[in-house]
């Protein structure tokens, strides 16, 4: 029933940009579904195997921007074989054949062959933007098809000319191969830059180039985002100070050469910082400086500088407590640390009730609270109880079933949960599946969850995007059971050692299981070692 002509509704829908809202709009009635689908320009597909390119094209003929995600998250940590899947080629091929005027393609954890890049560059007249996050499969030859000036070795002269011709250039990220005098020339030609990445920053502070660089940097008053410093001469960072006051994003997570006093001095200049990505060589003391200086901080990521090392220059619970006390706007955290205590987590929960993302990684995966020797159940329990808007949580340290009881009870908005080396029994998994109504992604490794937990409520998996379980106690028989009861799910067994071929015993424990909801049944591109039940 429409009180307005379609054009009016379409105009109204133009203001609705969030995918979730658009999805809701399309469910109101047939007429709204039709209007919405013709007017939708941006589509997000969280699992490329949940739908086919043909159905996408049929439903959204006005598609301009497509986001696709492929491999499960644990692929980032080498738990998923490279050729498991997530190939973008069939999507590009189907889109190229159709009348879709694609302008933007955003891919995450997809396999992107040179062939697909070439096809992409030839097929869409108005194509503007390609964003690849954690993708693989291509070489510089493939990228050359997309960006004509970047072949193999960096051609510095061509780069300078490209920058000169690009008055709208907002983002420039350079790698190690770009020498300092080129950087200085580029900056002189692009004072309008918003996002700058510097590869190599090593030079003699008394040189002519350095002086020119200082002047060039000062002109770049629009820079809001700074990253890189793969190689860095710490005593030359003072040239950067003039632009630090404007920075909202600083990414020093590739700069182990920057630490101690020089790093702290740099941070002291960054009063407007909203996002900070840093290595743990900043230390608890450095985090104290962050707490005093960066009052606008919303997101903090502290990466390990030596993942397997003794951890001299690392951070502990102290640094996190300091930041939580000093930065009231903090809502997103990724924190790799040597240790954590319940008391610290309880304090952090009190200081920062606004967490949306809380990802804690204690480098020793089953380390208890070092002060009390207790599991970290109470600490994480405090986090979920206090942070009512929590959407993403990653746990670590010594944890029993108790923490999952808390999560099921309190984490009402939780959408993604990552668990490793935790829990005592099936009860842990059941608390989560029963309690977290908004759960979309659950990834579990090395936990004692078996068939009883897996099979308790198979209907739940249809309300989620995916479930990953590796090195748990689920058996082949259990997985088969899920597949039988739920034809709308693909239940994949990833068996790289090819044991399943020789031993089809249902009681056999499954090493890696990945299940996800889909509208298009079993995928046809799975490698030999993946069985879809």
């Amino acid at each position, binding site marked *: 029933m429409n009180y307005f002509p379609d054009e009016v509704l379409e105009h109204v829908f133009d203001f609705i940009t969030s995918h979730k809202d658009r999805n809701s709009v399309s469910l109101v009635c047939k007429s709204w579904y039709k209007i919405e689908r013709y007017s939708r320009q941006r589509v997000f597909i969280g699992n490329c195997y949940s739908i086919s390119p043909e159905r996408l094209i049929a439903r959204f003929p006005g598609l301009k921007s497509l986001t696709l995600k492929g491999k499960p998250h*644990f692929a*980032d*940590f*080498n*738990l998923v*074989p*490279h*050729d498991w899947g997530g190939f973008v080629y069939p999507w590009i091929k189907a889109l190229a054949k159709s009348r879709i005027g694609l302008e933007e393609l955003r891919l995450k954890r997809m396999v992107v062959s040179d062939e697909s890049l070439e096809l992409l560059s030839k097929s869409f007249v108005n194509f503007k933007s390609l964003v690849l996050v*954690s993708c693989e499969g291509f070489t510089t030859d493939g990228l050359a098809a997309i960006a004509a000036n970047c072949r193999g070795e960096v051609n510095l002269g061509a780069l300078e000319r490209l920058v000169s011709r690009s008055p709208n250039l907002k983002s420039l990220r350079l790698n190690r191969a770009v020498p300092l005098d080129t950087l200085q020339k580029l900056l002189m030609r692009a004072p309008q830059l918003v996002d700058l990445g510097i590869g190599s920053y*090593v030079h003699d502070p008394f040189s002519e180039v350095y002086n020119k660089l200082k002047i060039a940097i000062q002109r770049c008053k629009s820079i809001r985002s700074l990253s890189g410093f*793969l*190689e860095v*001469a710490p*005593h030359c960072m003072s040239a950067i100070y003039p632009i630090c006051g404007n920075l909202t994003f600083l990414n020093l*997570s*590739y*700069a*182990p*050469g920057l630490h101690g006093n020089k790093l702290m001095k740099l941070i002291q200049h960054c009063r407007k910082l909203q996002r900070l990505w840093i290595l743990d060589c900043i230390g608890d003391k450095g985090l104290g400086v962050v707490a005093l200086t960066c009052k606008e901080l919303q997101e903090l990521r502290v*990466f*390990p*500088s*030596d*993942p*397997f090392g003794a951890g001299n220059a690392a951070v502990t619970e102290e640094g996190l407590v300091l930041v939580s006390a000093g930065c009231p706007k903090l809502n997103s955290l990724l924190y*790799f640390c040597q240790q954590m205590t319940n008391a610290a987590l309880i304090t952090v929960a009190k200081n920062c009730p606004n967490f949306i993302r809380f990802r804690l*990684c204690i*480098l*020793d*995966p*089953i*380390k*208890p609270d070092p002060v009390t*020797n*207790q*599991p970290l159940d109470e600490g994480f329990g405090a986090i979920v109880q206090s942070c009512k808007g929590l959407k993403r949580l*990653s746990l670590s340290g*010594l944890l*029993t079933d108790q923490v999952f009881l808390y999560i099921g009870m309190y984490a009402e908005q939780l959408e993604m949960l*990552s668990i*490793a*080396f935790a829990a*005592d029994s099936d009860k842990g998994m059941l608390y989560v599946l029963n309690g977290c109504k908004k759960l979309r992604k659950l990834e579990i*490794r*090395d936990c*004692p969850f078996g068939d009883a937990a897996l099979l308790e409520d198979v209907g739940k998996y249809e309300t989620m995007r995916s479930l990953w379980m590796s*090195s748990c106690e689920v058996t082949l028989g259990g997985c088969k059971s899920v597949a039988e009861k739920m034809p709308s799910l693909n239940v994949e067994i990833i068996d*790289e*050692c090819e*044991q399943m071929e020789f031993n089809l015993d249902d009681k056999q*424990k499954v*090493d890696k299981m990945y299940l996800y909801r889909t509208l298009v049944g079993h995928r046809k591109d799975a*490698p*030999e*070692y993946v069985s879809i039940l």
Partner: protein
Amino acid sequence: MENSVAYEKATELRLGLPGIDEPAVLSSVKNNKRPLHDEKSGENGKSAQNETAPPSKAQIVGWPPVQSYRKNNFQQAKKSESECGGIYVKVSMDGAPYLRKIDLKVYKGYPELLQVLENMFKFTIGEYSEREGYKGSDYEPTYEDKDGDWMLVGDVPWEMFITSCKRLRIMKGSEARGLSCSGV
């Protein structure tokens, strides 16, 4: 395809010896976890942890959950840093109004360093001998090493010196002579 699987198996971080089936070894990791807080919680936690701790972190596949390009980057940065970073140390001279800084990596040995110091502060250093230190001058070059001790410049091999030197100080007068005197 077969090749890539073989490659993966060959380079894969595994628990236990090659050729052993994965599940068997991994399950022993999980079993190790149980005793830790079932039986031994509250007792001497530290020793319990050492006894039943999982294999060293480097052997657990996919842990810590850091993307490989970050791990690789750190190795690379560590190497390149030691190749191209200078070793800048402060140089003070008794009586001088301000300090100077020099890059020890630039010099090939003691003679060059001492020459530079002489030029910088306009003084002369005496003749070095192992027995008596620097003779023939009121000044002695000294340095603070990693342990915080003040040492006479020239006693140890050059390479050892530049890695252990934290700062230089050119001492003057009687204090200087105290350092070089051997046993008198």
